């Protein structure tokens, strides 16, 4: 059998991913994370009477803390399968990717293991986040002053 012919056969036999249903599930589960953060924010501004900017910062800190703890407790390992990528896209996912890498490599030493692999998955987010922020700022300054 020729390579092209085989690759065609592989394509036929490999089940298609259910992208639409996965995307819808992720939409809902990601939205739930958003709802949770809004709740935290509301509680902080009303019950604890924090200002808007400090309430935002505290919300992010709480979200990071909670998701790191849940990573360590093995919550994501079980729930990402069910909730799809909705759980790992927002701030919760960023904290989760850092914590899971850290857990994997902590036995390889603080520098060579944990330190070197801490941003294994999140590194790209930081790098390209900074680059796109920079480019957008340039566009803003050039066109809108």
């Amino acid at each position, binding site marked *: *059998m020729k*390579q092209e012919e*085989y*690759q065609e*056969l*592989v394509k036929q*036999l*490999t*089940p298609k*991913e259910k992208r639409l249903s*996965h995307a819808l599930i992720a939409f809902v589960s990601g939205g739930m994370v958003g709802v949770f953060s809004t709740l935290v924010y509301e509680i902080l501004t009303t019950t604890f009477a924090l200002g808007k900017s400090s309430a935002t910062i505290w919300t992010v800190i709480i979200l990071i803390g909670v998701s790191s703890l849940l*990573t*360590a407790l*093995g919550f*994501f*390992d*079980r*729930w*990402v*399968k069910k909730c*799809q*990528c909705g759980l*790992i896209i927002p701030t919760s996912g960023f904290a*989760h*990717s850092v*914590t*899971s*890498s850290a*857990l*994997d*490599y902590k*036995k390889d030493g603080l520098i060579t293991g944990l330190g070197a692999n801490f941003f*294994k*998955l999140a590194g790209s987010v930081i790098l390209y986040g900074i680059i796109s922020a920079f480019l957008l700022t340039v566009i803003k300054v050039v066109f809108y002053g």
Partner: protein
Amino acid sequence: MASFIYDNVYLKDAYTIVGPYETKGKLSNFDLTIEDMYYGEKTFEKAEVKMQVKAIDSLMARNYLNDNQVDCLVGGELSNQITTSSVTASKYKIPFLGLYSACATFNEALITGANLIKLNNHHIIAYTSSHNLNSEKQFRYPVEYGAPKKESTTFTATGAIATLLTDEKTNIKVESATIGKVIDYGIKDVNNMGAVMAPAAVQVLFDHLNELHRPATYYDVIITGDLGNIGEELFRKLCQKQNIKYNKYFDAGTEIYRLEQDTKAGASGPTSLPIVLFSKILKEKKYSKILLIATGSLHSPSLVNQKNSIPSIAHAVSLEVIK
């Protein structure tokens, strides 16, 4: 020609250890099952070494062998630089040959061992292992990350197997073997290893039958290593195309887990074939001529990240159960 016929090589005994996922699967009859992926150790790497050592120790004890009576250890698995197998070998005063054919390592060890017996050695221990979480860490994502998986991915089985090859007559004869060629059919998808390896399995089957001048119907059953359900289907289609007709064929990767365990395309890893062989096929005593085709995907994360196609290999070993 890379086919061998043996007349004095026998399989005397095997010791199988499996992890918690495999215990809950379709098979039973293991020598030892472990509940904890750490197996009482600090790291998963140490746990895998402990599994191998336990398998070899138990096998030697059961057959009243000491270090001096075993001529050589041959083994390997999936860890970087096969360190797991080397650390295991450091616990014994027995010469060691480390091997790597990814998930086809078990058959490579059997072939190497059988050829050593042919050269007048008496006792060879062939061993292999795999650990799901070590493989996840090495080839995929961090363990706790839990990234969603494609339907075509396979699940690395956890376990260790040690087998004793000898020149004393037993009821399982290693009858012949064929060393496979490395095949590359241009598949780049690391999440579809069945598709990567199926052509290598068919190639070694074709060469084996050709070189030993026998039809595929000579065997009561042909078992591939860890193609999973997609690779199994591809193997059948490729055999049809090559006009190879067999009595019975199935893939070991599809025999280990239950559907509800959500392991996608099935089990993979060098242990999946020997687990099925020793805890099911040989225990059932249904077949007398068995052809084992262990399959291996020869990739590394760099090879895949640089968008190269993945080479694969398969080795064939023929066993004869003497009644």
